[in-house]
């Protein structure tokens, strides 16, 4: 067993963990350790060989591996330590971390602050409870991406994608490039759930049909998938009898949502938000347990990696303040979700001596045009911003000025809502 002490232990070496580690080092923190269960750093990025990463953060169009490499190289330069192939089993409230690795056996790490950056996992067929048989040939889009891009294996030749999440869209194009026939992307909602740029660049450019308001209602084939039955759904997402249609295929890819991976967070008793599936955090990304921070997709599933990095840097700053004893005894104001807000992070914020602007990352419930995103104290509007269009697939970033924050310093709770903005306002 090895037993080490560090300043900050970072759980997970994907973009969030790497971003947090680099920022922590730049803030002058000495011992920063990344614990990673995989054999390499970068998280999901090494298998995301398409472009579109870093447009906001680097103002460049990078591929996933390129984005990861920038941070891995920087972490290396900054002398961030990393333990690979290390699977963590438990975190305690006093910030001891237990894990396993082939090389070192049992590991115990004691940290002054912990940053959780475990990322997310994909929703599966079971979570949707799709009926039918259970043959080979059903993959989540991310697993298929790993098989194609990392293992050089072709999951199938005739493909149906269920769900129009970004990974599914990217894989529809990728599989078309390697000679497979993508017969359709089927989406239960009346609008796509992936980024608009991916709908255009991955489906429209390749004439792959996007079938909205439909879902898979049956799966056929005993040994290998032989086909799926799709059906139109009503406004309550229930399949409409008589609308069934059989599509022969040997592979079904699922791109039906991502779930923050919070089993470790639960093991230490961190409070989780049902809306995001991640921890409740404040504007420093601090969780309900002092000194344990969280960032990236383990907090909420972000649409862009750039935001993941942003949240990671905030968490590193938070951890730094915590270690300096500057996050104590602040009064907390809760942020509630109002009209058309599906999730918002941070879910609360605290007020110290110094007040800074706070950025809220919002996902809306349904698409809406010409809206106003606003912060309310009771019924009183404190701060707002107009948006031409909002959609659930694209995160709304709502930065509230320090001046506005000062105005609500006496509030118990505030509300963020998205609503149609009236004329003349």
């Amino acid at each position, binding site marked *: *067993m090895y037993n080490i002490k560090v300043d900050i232990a970072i759980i997970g070496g994907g973009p969030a963990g790497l971003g947090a580690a680099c920022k922590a080092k730049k803030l002058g923190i000495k011992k920063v350790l990344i614990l990673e*269960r995989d054999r390499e750093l970068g998280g999901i990025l090494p298998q995301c060989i398409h472009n579109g990463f870093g447009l906001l953060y680097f103002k460049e169009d990078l591929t996933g591996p390129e984005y990861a490499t920038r941070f891995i190289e920087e972490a290396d330069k900054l002398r961030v330590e990393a333990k690979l*192939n290390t*699977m963590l*089993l438990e975190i305690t409230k006093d910030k001891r971390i*237990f894990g*396993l*690795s*082939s*090389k*070192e*056996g*049992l590991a115990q790490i004691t940290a002054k602050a912990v940053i959780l950056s475990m990322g997310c*996992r*994909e929703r*599966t*067929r*079971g*979570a949707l*409870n*799709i*009926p*039918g*048989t*259970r*043959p*080979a*040939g059903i*993959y*989540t889009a*991310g*697993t298929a991406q*790993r*098989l*194609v891009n*990392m*293992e*050089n*294996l*072709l*999951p*199938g*030749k005739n493909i149906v994608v269920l769900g129009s999440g970004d990974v599914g869209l990217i894989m529809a194009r990728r599989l078309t490039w*390697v000679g497979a026939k993508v017969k359709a992307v089927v989406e239960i909602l009346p609008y796509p759930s992936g980024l608009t740029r991916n709908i255009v660049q991955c489906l429209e450019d390749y004439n792959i049909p996007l079938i909205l308001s439909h879902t898979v*209602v*049956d799966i056929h084939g*005993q*040994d*290998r998938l032989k086909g799926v039955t799709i059906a139109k759904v009503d406004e309550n997402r229930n*399949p409409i009898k008589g609308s069934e249609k059989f599509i022969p295929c*040997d*592979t079904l890819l699922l791109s039906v949502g991502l779930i923050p991976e919070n*089993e470790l967070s*639960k093991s230490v008793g961190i409070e989780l938000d049902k809306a995001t599936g991640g921890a409740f955090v404040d504007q420093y990304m601090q969780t309900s347990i002092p000194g344990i921070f969280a960032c990236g997709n383990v907090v909420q599933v972000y649409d862009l990696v750039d935001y993941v990095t942003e949240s990671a840097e905030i968490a590193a700053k938070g951890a730094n303040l915590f270690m300096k004893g500057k996050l104590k005894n602040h009064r907390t104001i809760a942020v509630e979700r109002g009209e058309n807000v599906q999730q918002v992070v941070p879910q609360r914020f605290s007020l110290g001596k110094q007040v800074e602007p706070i950025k809220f990352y919002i996902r809306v419930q349904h698409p809406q045009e010409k809206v106003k995103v606003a912060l309310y104290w009771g019924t009183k509007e404190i701060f707002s911003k107009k948006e031409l269009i909002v959609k659930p697939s694209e995160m709304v970033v709502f930065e509230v000025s320090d001046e506005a924050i000062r105005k609500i310093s006496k509030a118990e709770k505030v509300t963020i809502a998205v609503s149609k903005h009236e004329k003349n306002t």
Partner: protein
Amino acid sequence: MGGSTTLRTPFLTRSKADVAIIGAGIIGATIARELSRYKLSTILIDKEADVGWGTTKANTGVIHAGYSEDPHTLRGKLTTPGNRISKQLCEELEVPLKRIGSIVVSLNRKELPVLNKLENYAKILGVTGTRILKKDELHSMVPHLTPKAVYGFYAPTAAIVSPYGLAIALVENAQANGLNVLLQTKVLGLEKKRQGITLNTTSGDVRTDFVINAAGLWADEISAMSGEKEFNIHPRKGEYILFDETIGEITGKIIFPAPTPISKGIAFAPFVEGNYAVGPTDEDIQDKEDLFTSFEGLKKVFNSAEKFFPEIPFKRYMIRNFCGLRAVADENDFIIRPSYNMKGLIHAAGIQSPGLTAAPAIASMVMDILKDQGMKLHPNPHFNPERRTIHRIKDVDYKTKEKLIEGDPRYGHIVCRCETVSEAEVIEAIRRGATTLDGIKFRVRCGMGRCQGGFCTPRVMEILSSELKTPLTKISKRGKGSRLVKGKVWDGSFNV
């Protein structure tokens, strides 16, 4: 004796055994293990790529107390003794059996006579410790239960076990004691010879003195090979939903609704490994290969879950649905007897619920029939009743974890994250006979968890490929026709 330690199957052209067992489900496996106590050569034949892949792998995993069946039937008579023997059997084989008890819950005062009938059966059949629970006690024992529940019938001897885990352990132990196993082999016909019976199989002929028909859903078709179909088996479909272990302890006990004449109803059963299953439905069907779960069936399961435990947010914890087919004989009872048509053929058929519980009692009944039929039983002097389980890194304390990794560093390399399964466990599963992704899953639980194999599938494929020295493109989910991928993306050549 001796026998191979793995399930890998040689192609037979001609082979000779004292006993051939058709079907490596829980019944065939239990009988095979009983036979391995004696100096006999036994061969266990199954059409699937692994043992326990029929009805055995898809059921509730309950060792019933034995009160629920009519005492005049074999199902009634064999269940309580089966329950009693199961404990020792599981101890010998290191298969976890948890005696958590069961409660039949009635939501309606009118159902009290049904519970009284169960108590009466329990008395007749010698089921110990049972009693009727009044409302207060019922609710203190099952905290989240709907307030509508009025009575309960408690049976403390009911237990849970992994049915496929038990079948695998039985076969492993029998193999160590000399059993031969022939997988991916279909029996095509039985020929009565002057001496014994010859089985024509897809892997060649097997000459044998006795044939035991434990072919589950297909037992009637095997019986027909004796010249005449002696009984009919039809499938009764049961659909289940499986919930992640993080749903927590909904109830520490197995919960049944009040039974109907054909079924014990949709049960709530914790699995020994920590997940939670709700099911089965019961639907009599025709097609023995109809393993479709249905929208309606799953809805029934779901409605029942919400009816009994309205507070539990079941939806958020669903990880899989599946269905199993019970092999129901027309007479609705077990058929355990010699064939009327062919000497040497013995049926262990129509083994529907509670077959898993009754299995050890069924096996001893079959042994008695074999003796009756003139089989000579000389004890196998090398018989070792014990079988060691695969060490699970997840289940041991930190100190033992460290020791395991010290002995084999591959224990420190976690392949399946949701279920914390190490590379060493996967390799051991392969050494013991797993050749497919499902074979690994049923032995060490890779892919059983909340991500359902999303992360570990490529890793397990790699390990299977390197251990079995088989190309990655040929690795399958469960043998024949279920290859996981359709080839390589790029064949490595530069001739574009």
